[in-house]
């Protein structure tokens, strides 16, 4: 799974990692075992070269003829003067063999020594031929096999358990975020972008689980390899160890300089890429204006500027990160030669055996590889820390009251429908009061309309009534009970609410309409659809009520709006809130819906927020709001007579230019 490493700097690296590990508490046993296994298998891969060097030594023995024995034979044969057979180590050398031996030896010079050696008579050959210790080789092989297989097995177990822990952890984080969304006060969503929360659920959680799965283990096992290979090198031979470390140290220093340099380019690249992507997004979504205002030339110029700017940092970061591998290769080759040269010197002085050199050839690779990996996993741990900071920050946001102290309950069936606003004061942010001392009594079955220009605070009233926000001062009473004493769920149950926002989820029409109420029959759904006039539309769909609602444009926003109205109707609650519920349908359709709504609002206390004044003319009470204040109260006729803000607003509909 190749992945771009975008390194974000965490605010507090160790703090975040520590917190993250605390979150992992549930799986600490598995985690611990996985880490131990990783360490053990790293240790195995350090021990293994030593055994391999033993093996090499054994094989080396197999190519060296037994020169001492040869000399012994030579002396004995010479002293014998072919006087009869000689017995050495229970082997009898006949006179004929001795004769042959002398002939061969006399013809031997440095160049043909090995060839002559093979011509030796059998008896002598068997005495002086190189001997491998087969038992020893078997012994070493078994140890090696065990080390390799166990190492691989541990690695696998570790990998599987980390995979499962990191994914379970990711799942838990996602669930927590999802639950958190339900428990956050609404104003959190006013102040934070959807995209930001979304990227925490996917990108950040992904980054955490990916890095947890890789970096943590990589870090631990490479640290083990690194330290372990140092220990083993010193244990094997300190002069060689110093040679190996000394020859690589400059390379390492250079590498770290290069890493930090490339980091700079990476960060710059990430930023420029972000800018460019932002620009592309803006331009594409403004396509119509860019085209019709002849903005193309200007846009292309700006784009080219950004695009060209990206090129350099892009190239440099690719180049530098591409160089890492070859560079490490060179360091390792350099170390290799140093080890060989020094090793050869030591061998010639008989300080070490050839096998030690072979072992060091492997150690030098074991020693140089981890540093690169450690550096990489450190950077990815950094982005893990940054990601977990973002996730944990979200999870630690202040939640809504937990409503443990709720005692009262208002039954849906027995609710009368009276609402009293009693000196209500409210502001979304502290010190900025929007609703100042608002009092009103609404009798059961009355229709209350709230009008006013955009941003006047119409929706605020509804938000307070639904207990989406807590009021700062004063009280709201439903059938005489303060909403402070009622649970949010209880209040929501009492209200049927239709919003301007035509929110439907991805699912069938049926599921959307009977939203969260499993006991609704199809007939009831169709009945509601008939009232709002979408029954015909549903019948034309290939799957009828079971048609999926997706993001494509097969269902217009007007139709979606009608569905939300139908959904509200099915809810069937004693109170009704229509927040610009018909703003997405044309006026003719609206009239149809309005009639249906009137049927629906009969005998229900209803609150209607509307843009189109025609919608609310017959309301019992109209609240006119401007800049957060309620500036006029009365029914249509009364307000028109006042000739104030409302009358002005109303008349501007059809005044002449």
């Amino acid at each position, binding site marked *: 799974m190749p992945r771009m490493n975008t390194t974000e700097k965490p605010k507090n690296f160790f703090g975040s990692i520590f917190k993250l590990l605390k979150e992992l508490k549930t799986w600490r046993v598995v985690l611990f075992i996985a880490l131990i296994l990783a360490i053990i298998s790293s240790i195995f891969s350090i021990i293994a070269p030593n055994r391999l060097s033993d*093996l090499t030594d054994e*094989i080396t023995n*197999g*190519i060296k003829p037994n020169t001492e024995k040869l000399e012994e034979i030579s002396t004995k044969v010479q002293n014998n003067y072919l006087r009869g057979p000689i017995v050495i180590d229970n082997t009898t050398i006949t006179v004929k063999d001795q004769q042959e031996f002398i002939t061969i030896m006399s013809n031997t010079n440095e160049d043909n020594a*090995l060839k002559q*050696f093979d011509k030796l008579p059998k008896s002598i050959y068997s005495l002086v031929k190189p001997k491998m210790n087969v038992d020893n080789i078997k012994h070493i*092989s078994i140890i090696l096999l065990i080390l390799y*297989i166990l*190492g691989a097995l541990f*690695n696998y177990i570790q*990998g599987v358990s*980390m*995979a499962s822990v990191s994914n*379970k952890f990711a799942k838990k984080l996602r*669930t927590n975020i*999802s*639950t958190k*969304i*339900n428990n956050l006060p*609404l104003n959190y*969503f006013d102040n934070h972008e959807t995209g930001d929360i979304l990227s925490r659920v*996917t990108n950040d959680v992904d980054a955490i689980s990916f890095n947890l799965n890789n970096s943590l283990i990589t870090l631990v096992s490479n640290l083990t390899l690194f330290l372990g290979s140092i220990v083993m090198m010193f244990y094997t031979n300190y002069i060689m160890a110093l040679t190996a470390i000394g020859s690589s140290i400059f390379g390492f220093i250079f590498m770290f300089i290069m890493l930090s340099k490339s980091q700079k380019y990476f960060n710059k690249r990430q930023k420029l890429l972000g800018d460019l992507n932002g620009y592309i997004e*803006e*331009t*594409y979504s403004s*396509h*119509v204006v*860019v085209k*019709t205002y*002849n903005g193309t030339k200007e846009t292309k110029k700006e784009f080219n500027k950004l695009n060209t700017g990206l*090129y350099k940092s892009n*190239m*440099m970061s*690719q180049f530098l990160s*591409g*160089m890492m591998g*070859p560079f490490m290769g060179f360091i390792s080759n350099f170390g*290799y*030669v140093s080890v060989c*040269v020094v090793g*050869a*010197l030591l061998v*010639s002085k008989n300080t070490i055996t*050839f096998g030690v*050199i072979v072992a060091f050839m492997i150690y030098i690779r074991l020693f140089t590889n981890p540093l690169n990996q450690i550096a990489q996993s450190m950077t990815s741990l950094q982005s893990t820390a940054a990601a977990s900071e973002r996730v944990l920050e979200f999870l630690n946001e202040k939640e809504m009251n937990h409503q443990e102290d709720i005692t009262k309950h208002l039954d849906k069936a027995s609710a009368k429908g009276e609402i009293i606003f009693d000196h209500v004061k409210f502001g979304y942010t502290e010190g900025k009061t929007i609703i100042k001392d608002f009092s009103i009594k609404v009798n059961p079955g009355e229709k209350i309309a709230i009008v006013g220009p955009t941003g006047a605070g119409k929706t605020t009233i509804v938000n307070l009534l639904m207990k989406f926000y807590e009021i700062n001062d004063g009280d709201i009473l439903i059938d005489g009970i303060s909403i402070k004493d009622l649970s949010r769920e209880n209040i929501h*149950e009492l209200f049927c*609410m239709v919003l301007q926002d035509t929110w439907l*989820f991805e699912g069938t029409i049926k599921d959307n309409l009977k*939203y*969260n109420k499993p006991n609704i029959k199809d007939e009831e759904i169709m009945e509601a659809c008939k009232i709002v006039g979408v029954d015909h539309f549903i019948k034309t769909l290939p799957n009828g009520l079971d048609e999926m609602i997706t993001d494509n444009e097969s269902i*217009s926003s007007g139709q979606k709006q009608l569905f939300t109205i139908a959904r509200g109707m099915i809810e069937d609650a004693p109170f009704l809130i229509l927040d610009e519920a018909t703003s997405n349908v044309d*006026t*003719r*359709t609206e*009239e149809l819906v309005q009639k249906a709504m009137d049927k629906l609002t009969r005998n229900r206390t209803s609150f209607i927020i509307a843009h189109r004044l025609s919608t609310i003319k017959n309301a019992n009470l109209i609240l006119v709001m401007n800049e957060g204040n309620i500036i006029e109260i009365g029914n249509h006729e009364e307000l028109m007579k006042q000739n104030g803000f409302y009358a002005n*607003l109303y008349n*501007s*509909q*059809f005044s*002449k230019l």
Partner: protein
Amino acid sequence: MIKILKQFSFKEWLIVLFCLVLTYINVTLELKIPDYMSEITRLIQSSSDNMSHDILVQGAWMLLFAFSSFICAGISIYFAARLSSSFSQNIREKIFNKVESFGLKEMKKFQTASLITRTTNDITQIETFIAMGLHMMLRSPIMCVMAITKIIGKSIEWSMLLAGCVVLLLAVVITIFIVVVPKFKLMQKLIDKLNAVTRENITGVRVIRAFNAEKFQSDRFEDVNNNLTKTQTFNLKAFAVLGPVMNIVMHFLTFGIYLIGAYLISNSLMVDKVEIFSNMVVFSSYGMQVIMSFLMLAFVFMIGPRASISANRINEVLDEENSIKEGTFNKPTEETGTVEFKNVSFRYPDADEYIIENISFKANKGETIAFIGSTGSGKSTLINLIPRLYDATEGEVLVDNINVKDYTFETLNNKLGYITQKAVIFTGSVKDNVSYGETDHKVKEEDIKEAIKIAQAEEFVSKLDGELKAHVARGGTNLSGGQKQRLSIARAIARKPEIYIFDDTFSALDYKTDLALRKELKKYTKDATSLIVAQRIGTIMNADKILVLDNGKCVGMGTHKELLKSCEVYKEIALSQLSEEELQNA
């Protein structure tokens, strides 16, 4: 994938060739290194007198080769990086320019969001592939072939072992690949779904709470979450096999070569023993190279398909034939400020039904023509034909008595001031937004101020920090909907066009602002022609001519008064908004 590589210029191919040569040299040099290693090994074995001197000489040679090969690799990586970056830069520019030339039909076909991903993410995908893939793809085959030629014939036993290891490794890699790739696709879908559900939960937070449906939504989320976790765990577990298998195969290769070596040596004549031994050392290092290059190739093939999907998506955009062709007329016209539709019909190319059918009307200089009708009646589509966001399927659209298809885009656009239903705001200052684009005259500072004043934006702009220079955030998030709309109207006014086109622009404004704006505009643009799409009767009842659309057909044309009498549909619309009495009084 291959098709997109055709976008390489001749120079870029030369660079590829150059990289190929460099890689060849790099590999040749690199493969010399084991020779020196074995020479050094031999020297150590030989224990001759001036052994350390000889080793030093050989070591120096080995380092020289290592260094040269490192330099070669460096140069080739440098050029590969240049190549991939400039390639991505070029192709990004090509797509961007292509998209900029698209009409609405093409935009709708691809969807804006998808075009954005194609211009950004898909290109990055290919860039990464070229940067990594080029190096690996050039290197691995060369490395593999050369390493094999070095060791071929050394020993049948070792070769068999090596072949066995390669086959085993490839089998494991391919199996995992086959098992995991479909799951990866599934995972991508699940991540999209997770995003979708979370987005739902956030955007619908008020509805969800109002319906007490938190649990319902949580269940939906958990459903996807579970599926995603299961798939992801499966994938990671499958991948967990890869590392240990790779390790064990490589270890076994070395180990096996040594064991076989021991056997061969013990059974050979003295004269061959040393040679077999040094062959063994050489074989084990070349063998490792062979395995590594096979693994590298496998890796390229693993990231290949993903890049290939991206390449296809990019090709689709580049291959898209633009349905709207630019004309050549760019001279001043005799008539000004007229728009005429002659029997115009429009339908989407693959649709059966017309969206608008047989529409004819003429707007003269200074007139206001309004279009009204229910949602989906074709009002917006109709006026989209004027700036050629779509082209009429049948009939002619004339501006200043010349078919819009004959104009150059620039000339046509200079005549028009088009304001969209949803305000479009750019990142930058208020001034940047109002003076956006190009027209036949330079938009001066006082034009901007005047336009802002007429668009009823003066009051809020003066309250902004920095006024005209005030910063407007991406998507205009620091402005309200009405404010954004007023700025976009000011943008059209600043151009001083002959013809204004308002596509349901006024619905976002409250009645009062709507009225004041239109009054000012009328005063300022006496000679300008206005085409207005609206939903409110109030907005359009003073128009010189009103076209009533119903299901794409024109069911009535005339003034407010005339239509009230003659057009049933219009009357219905009017009555749904105002009472009979009010209509009479108005």
